[in-house]
């Protein structure tokens, strides 16, 4: 698990921080929201807040992810838009960088739709802890981001993994 360097060292150069963390934050937000516009908006807002109100006592990377997560969660308008978009186009999440053939593209789109749906059936906290764990954050950093105790993060991760694996196992069977 990586946690970055302390803010006193990191905060000196926000341009460098942007270069280091923007892509990872954007990827996480795409996974979290399934909406590239919403992900870009939240990522931008997190970096603007980094300049306006830099963290005093937290690692910058964890702080950025927590702020962006809160931006997505607390933005009712964006969330409503997100739900609408998901209902209208569940596979709207951006494509990978490989251009597959027609059959492969269709299957890939189907699998993305499945995993997107499986993620959406998790609670907000379960989805957040799972995705932040995938980004390599320590449990205490995840706990800070979702507002819970470090001890309960492991429980939520296990529950999310069990739920997601169950959903995906069923889908894998149906896709065969």
């Amino acid at each position, binding site marked *: 698990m990586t946690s970055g360097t302390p803010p006193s060292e990191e905060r000196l150069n926000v341009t460098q921080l942007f270069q280091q963390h923007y892509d990872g934050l954007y990827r996480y937000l795409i996974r979290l929201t399934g909406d590239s516009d919403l992900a*870009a908006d939240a990522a931008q807002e997190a970096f603007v807040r980094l300049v306006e109100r830099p963290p005093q006592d937290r690692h910058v990377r964890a702080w950025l992810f927590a702020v962006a997560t809160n931006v997505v969660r607390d933005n009712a308008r964006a969330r409503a838009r997100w739900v609408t978009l998901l209902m209208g186009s569940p596979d709207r999440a951006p494509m990978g*960088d490989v251009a597959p053939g027609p059959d492969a593209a269709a299957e890939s789109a189907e699998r993305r739709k499945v995993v997107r749906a499986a993620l959406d059936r998790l609670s907000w906290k379960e989805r957040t802890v799972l995705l932040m764990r995938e980004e390599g954050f320590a449990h205490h950093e995840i706990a800070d981001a979702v507002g819970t105790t470090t001890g309960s993060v492991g429980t939520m991760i296990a529950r999310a993994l069990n739920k997601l694996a169950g959903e995906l196992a069923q889908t894998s069977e149906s896709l065969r």
Partner: protein
Amino acid sequence: MTLSTGSRHLGDDDLIAYMDHQLDREAMRLGGVHLRTCAECAERLEGLRQKSAVATEWLSLLDPGAPDPARRAAAQAAMERARFRRPSAVPLGAAWMKAAAAIVLMVGVGVATEPGRAFVADGIVRASGGNPGPTATRMLEWLGQRRQLAPVAMAPVRLAPPPPPPAAAAAPAADRAERSARPAPPAAKPGMSAPVRFLPAGPDVTLTFASVQSVGIAQVWIREVPQASAQVVTHYRGEEMVTSASGLEVRNREGSRADYTIIIPARYRYIRVRVGDAPEVLIHISKSKQEWIWTVNLQTSALQ
């Protein structure tokens, strides 16, 4: 993080924490011991590992390619704009603390240094219209400026006899420059020194002291201006100049005829001068006051 206790088996939270290396060293050791001896927990751990790997694989399907360059550039531009519109990186509380510290420092310097005390005292006298009341007087006494301030507010001190009128302020600048360049006129009669003049000139204030006396000692003492320089420009018999940390003293030890030039940096807004045995005088060096003139009454000088 430590392992939870009270159960024969490890909980899912313990297994996840173990798998993610989030336990402290001792808990990791105990977890490893347990997992080597408990097949059930080891099996559950393996199951969680497989689920985690599956989740990682499936979640990667959602990964975008490189972010849209336009959105990325827009985000960076927004961040840069925020940098420039941010009023200050210093929290408001810290700014107030700095302002308070600056005020305390200014007051401290104001009363701890002679120029500062003189400046404060000058302000008190001016605020009181040149006639300090009891409170102002006590403040002046506390500042040690009471007796020195009176001459500052008055016309140039003239010890004896009345010097030529200080017409320099009204004279054209060229005329003043010409007069400041030429030596001070000699004393009119024995027993009196020549006039002692302070003339602002550029970044310095020049004191010209033409000592012409047949008896006694002529002395000019400038306190707390150790950076002043002085030189005798004519005659060298019986003259004495002493510079020290407490100031500069220039005097004749006997009947003399000598011209002195003393240069005082004009950054000294106040200097203390004692001419002969006259009381010490605080001089406010300002461009508006072009000239000060004293003469030394040698016959009443305590140094004779």
